């Protein structure tokens, strides 16, 4: 390597209680490099970066930037040292203008004797936005007027305008549409051109290979290897991440297997103001019905409508036996399960044990004449969690301690335990690593052969093509296209109906 070394991490270590999140990781990154950082959920890649950025305190070891040891106690220290991060979650503050968000913590240039010059701040911020090509975003407007994606772009401006030496991008692309991603890649390239460095964390391996120079792999908190992106394939990366060969059977491989004519669920003329506009479809026994579209197309509301969770719904959702589903308890007692896209808020109770999360929908089934036995509940939860191979100490552990993939396993465990026949899975593999993803696909294929009906709502087109028997593409709250499973079907076919 002829490039100058920028960052050296030596023996970085971090424990959370008994979990060894980062175990003696040492690596070096050059100036002018885009470094991918990959690993499964819980491999320690986010924790590693969050120590670098001052979000977590460093458990052990040192970071050296330009040969000098860093003493980072908080994010401000990190910023001053020239390290910035764009996080997975919402990183902007509501109730402030776009400009105020961009200059948060760096208002001094606009202060005159303790009074803020908002006009100067807006003017500067607008110049910045224009220079990034985001001129449609107005600096003086309240940030709440912009959607999640625009707010993410504003965050990118905020993190990069000061030209940090190291820019950490932690799982940001999952929140972005194709356009937003392209903007982000452009910025990454610009940082590299400038002789500065990007650390890019993503679960999307094809994206990692396409946009990085080198990739470092972590597994179970340990450093495994660093490879040149141009020299390896996705399968090589998967192997490094998992530590064993991942079979080629990622999605199901069967085509042309007939789906039963038996209708399990019929949805007629369902309208939710602002979300859905007269949707009708049927779900068959043993069918995986995929829903795709752009993120605002209303497909996520379909899941809620079927589950009886929409606030203001018209039209009918009816089971084969004529039961109408209008509220959640009816849906659950009539064998409908729902895994939300918003996993942490709607699918599981974070501040609760694995046990209580798993038993909650089944509580009436587990009661004996209304009486609950603690031992019976624990046994039930334990069995279901183990069936899903959830990584845990025991079922008393709180869900908030688990990684994304394991949380999703808990969600699936509770519905499999309930024995639901219709599963509505919204973005079932969102933010989940390869190994768990593969397990979820295998499970879906198995449930399908057991005659369960699955509604799979997904923003990932390959997943729809790979798993669904039938795909409905939505646009502006309406169904805009229907495709039957076929190996000849391509991403372009689906995209054409989305936009």
């Amino acid at each position, binding site marked *: 390597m002829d490039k100058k070394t920028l960052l050296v991490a030596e023996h970085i270590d971090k424990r959370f209680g008994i979990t060894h999140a980062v175990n003696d990781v040492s690596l070096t990154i050059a100036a002018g490099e885009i470094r991918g950082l990959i690993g499964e959920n819980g491999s320690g890649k986010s924790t590693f970066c969050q120590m670098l950025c001052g979000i977590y305190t460093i458990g052990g070891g040192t970071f050296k930037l330009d040969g000098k040891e860093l003493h980072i106690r908080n994010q401000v220290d990190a910023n001053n040292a020239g390290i910035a991060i764009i996080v997975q979650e919402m990183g902007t503050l509501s109730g402030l203008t776009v400009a105020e968000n961009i200059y948060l913590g760096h208002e001094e240039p606009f202060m005159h004797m303790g009074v803020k010059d908002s006009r100067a701040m807006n003017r500067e911020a607008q110049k910045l936005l224009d220079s990034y090509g985001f001129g449609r975003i107005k600096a003086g407007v309240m940030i709440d007027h912009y959607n999640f994606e625009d707010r993410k772009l504003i965050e990118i401006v905020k993190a990069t305008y000061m030209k940090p030496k190291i820019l950490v991008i932690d799982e940001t692309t999952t929140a972005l549409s194709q356009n937003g991603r392209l903007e982000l890649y452009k910025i990454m390239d610009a940082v590299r051109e400038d002789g500065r460095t990007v650390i890019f964390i993503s679960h999307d391996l094809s994206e990692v290979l396409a946009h990085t120079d080198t990739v470092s792999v972590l597994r179970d908190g340990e450093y495994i290897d660093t490879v040149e992106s141009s020299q390896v394939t996705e399968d090589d990366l998967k192997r490094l991440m998992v530590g064993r060969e991942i079979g080629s059977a990622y999605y199901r491989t069967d085509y042309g297997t007939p789906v039963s004519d038996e209708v399990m669920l019929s949805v007629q003329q369902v309208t939710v103001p602002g979300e859905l506009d007269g949707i009708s479809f049927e779900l068959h026994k043993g069918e995986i019905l995929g829903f795709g579209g752009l993120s605002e197309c209303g497909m996520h509301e379909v899941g809620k409508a079927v589950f009886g969770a929409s606030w203001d719904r018209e039209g009918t959702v009816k089971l084969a036996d004529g039961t109408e589903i209008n509220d959640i308890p009816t849906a659950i007692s009539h064998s409908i399960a729902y895994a939300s896209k918003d996993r942490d808020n709607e699918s599981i109770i974070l*501040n609760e044990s694995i046990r209580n999360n798993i038993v909650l929908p089944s509580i009436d089934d587990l009661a004996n004449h209304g009486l*609950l036995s603690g031992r019976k509940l624990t046994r039930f939860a334990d069995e279901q969690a183990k069936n899903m191979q959830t990584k845990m100490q025991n079922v008393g552990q709180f869900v908030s301690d688990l990684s994304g993939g394991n949380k999703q396993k808990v969600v699936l465990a509770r519905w499999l335990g309930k024995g639901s026949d219709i599963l509505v899975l919204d973005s079932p593999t969102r933010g989940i690593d390869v190994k768990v993803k593969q397990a979820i696909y295998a499970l879906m294929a198995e449930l399908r052969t057991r005659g369960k009906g699955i509604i799979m709502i997904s923003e990932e087109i390959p997943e729809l093509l790979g798993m669904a028997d039938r795909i409905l593409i939505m646009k502006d709250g309406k169904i805009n296209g229907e495709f039957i499973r076929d190996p000849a079907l391509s991403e372009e076919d689906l995209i054409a109906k989305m936009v």
Partner: protein
Amino acid sequence: MEKKNKSTEQSRLRAFLTGDRFKALLPLIGFVIIILVMHIMTNGKILTPKKLRLLFSQIYYPTIVATGVFFIMTLGSIDFTEGSTLGVASIVVSALSFYSIPLAILGGILTGAAIGALNGFFHVKFRLPSFIVTICTMYLFRGVCAYFTTETAVPASNAIKALDQDWLKITITLAVLAVAFFLFKFTRIGNDVKAVGSGETAARFSGVRTGRVKFLAFVGAGALTGLAAFVNVIKVGSITSTAGNQLETQILISLVLGGLPITGGAKVRFTNIIVGTLMYAVLNSGLSILGYEPQVQQLIKGVVFLIFVALTIDRKALKVIK
């Protein structure tokens, strides 16, 4: 190597001191400390049989009320109406006690339940935070209470005063605790209440009828306060405008002293009720044996309360009280 062992030991100790298990033990440790301190400061006067009997006579009706509020606080909600509810229900009990004792008990319970229903209705139907609703209704029912007691105190019948016997009050208190424990531990109610407290949205998506659970908790807590009013009337005999004054803060302090997380949810324990009310009673009678002015007593209780909340609160689960 040795150095490493030492540092892991230290970090283990730190993990224990900041961990959940230690936090769960804090109320018991605090209880022992408060008893010891009071024992030493009063030269052992607090643990004499006579004082103990007096101490226990003070905790019957607060325990009954606290049991109801326990469910509300497990939900992550809060209730400031106990004092005024007790006052109004006590007036009803006293007035009805001239006709029939069972009718008086029933009247007290129904009055309390009605006030609870009103709180629950506004909290659930209009989605108002419970502390706003109950602060408003506290004002309202304090007013009602004052209206009936401005001229003279409301007297109760001699028949009801004759019931002022320890065994009766102990039986009622223990029965309430037993039934509540059963509901909390062995039925869906306890599960649902905890689930709503830990994460209301996810609980709703798991099939919990969250609105109904919240409404019922307020009705139940009101009904228990109504029952407590009966125990109060047989003790005091006549109701003045100050009946139940500041009961709500007493209950809140008791439950938090007992280790109930102010955010509710998964980490509540039924024993919080018992440990808390006992601790409050010991603190209370210790301070009066020591001869402090009531104003100074209040000040000390406030300080103890603050320290306890600061030590025990679960910052991870912290959000606005519903």
